[in-house]
């Protein structure tokens, strides 16, 4: 299975047509795949809170948005999640590269990894953790759930899911 293609196909099938990204090595393939889809408007952002602002605007303009980012960005976006996305009840799927988990080679990444789920739980953000490739089968349901409940929803995707970022 090509998971980059599967993820992008699920995004398209759920009418997601506006995506902002701040890249991560693990997300490079899915970002390439998104760029190959003309029906998705891809706007690279310089910081993830800026990206969420862009998504909020696109949503109000009638497009379903999503953001692709690294888990370190949870530290950057708490205020935006609370006072924009949650306060105005906006749906926002967040496809998150979960650095600092099993098979991670960079020690510093673990420092935010240990806070990631606690912060998301504190924010009452529904959170899914993709650890095995077959977990991607739930993505379609998670996207439908996000736009049903009008909430930000986190999809954490770790190195094992992506096939081992750390195996080098």
């Amino acid at each position, binding site marked *: 299975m090509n998971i980059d293609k599967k993820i992008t196909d699920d995004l398209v099938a759920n009418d997601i047509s506006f995506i902002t990204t701040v890249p991560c090595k693990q997300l490079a393939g899915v970002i390439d795949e998104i760029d190959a889809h003309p029906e998705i408007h891809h706007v690279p952002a310089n910081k993830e809170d*800026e990206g969420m602002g862009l998504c909020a605007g696109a949503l109000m303009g009638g497009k379903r948005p999503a953001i692709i980012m690294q888990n370190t960005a949870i530290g950057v976006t708490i205020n935006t999640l609370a006072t924009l996305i949650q306060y105005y009840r906006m749906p926002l799927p967040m496809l998150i590269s979960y650095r600092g988990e099993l098979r991670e080679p960079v020690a510093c990444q673990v420092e935010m990894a240990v806070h990631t789920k606690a912060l998301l739980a504190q924010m009452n953000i529904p959170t899914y953790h993709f650890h095995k490739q077959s977990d991607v089968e739930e993505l379609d349901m998670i996207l439908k759930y996000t736009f049903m409940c009008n909430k930000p929803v986190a999809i954490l995707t770790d190195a094992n899911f992506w096939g081992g970022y750390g195996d080098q």
Partner: protein
Amino acid sequence: MIRSEILKDIAPILRDQLVICNIGIPSQELHAIDDQPTNFYMLGTMGLASSIGLGLALAQPKPVIAIDGDGSVLTNLGTFPTIANNVADNFILLLIDNGSYGSTGDQPTYAGKKTRLEEVAKACGCENVITCEGKDAGSTLQSAIASNQMTVIVVKCESGNAKFPVITMDPVIIRDRFMKAVSA
């Protein structure tokens, strides 16, 4: 002129447009001067007015005016390269530059010292950047709307706030009526 006088001046122009208005006193002033369903008031999230405005402009064809301030845009300077590289000709960023953090007690910003936001915007690749005085904000805004070109307007004015009440409208209502106005 101070910001509230500029907003009073340009309210008849804003009335027919989609407006994303900056957090704090700017939103309180616009809400009190001329509340419209086409106004989206930011109740939180300092710095993202231009980003929300750009996202809205990229997603649909109606003109969008984002009203931002020097202090708040300084918290999100990354917005200028994003604006420059994702051209939306229905987008106008109206930066009211009074050189101070108005909502928090008029502490000076760096834009009121050595930093020139119009030069920052140009250096980031924004092609139509206009600087004007407060009294010319209306005519400059009208020309920008007529030009159908993405424009950044930096309005230089004095610091100071008008006394208006806090917005108590529920955020979901603000969003809902705004989205209905967008799709009308």
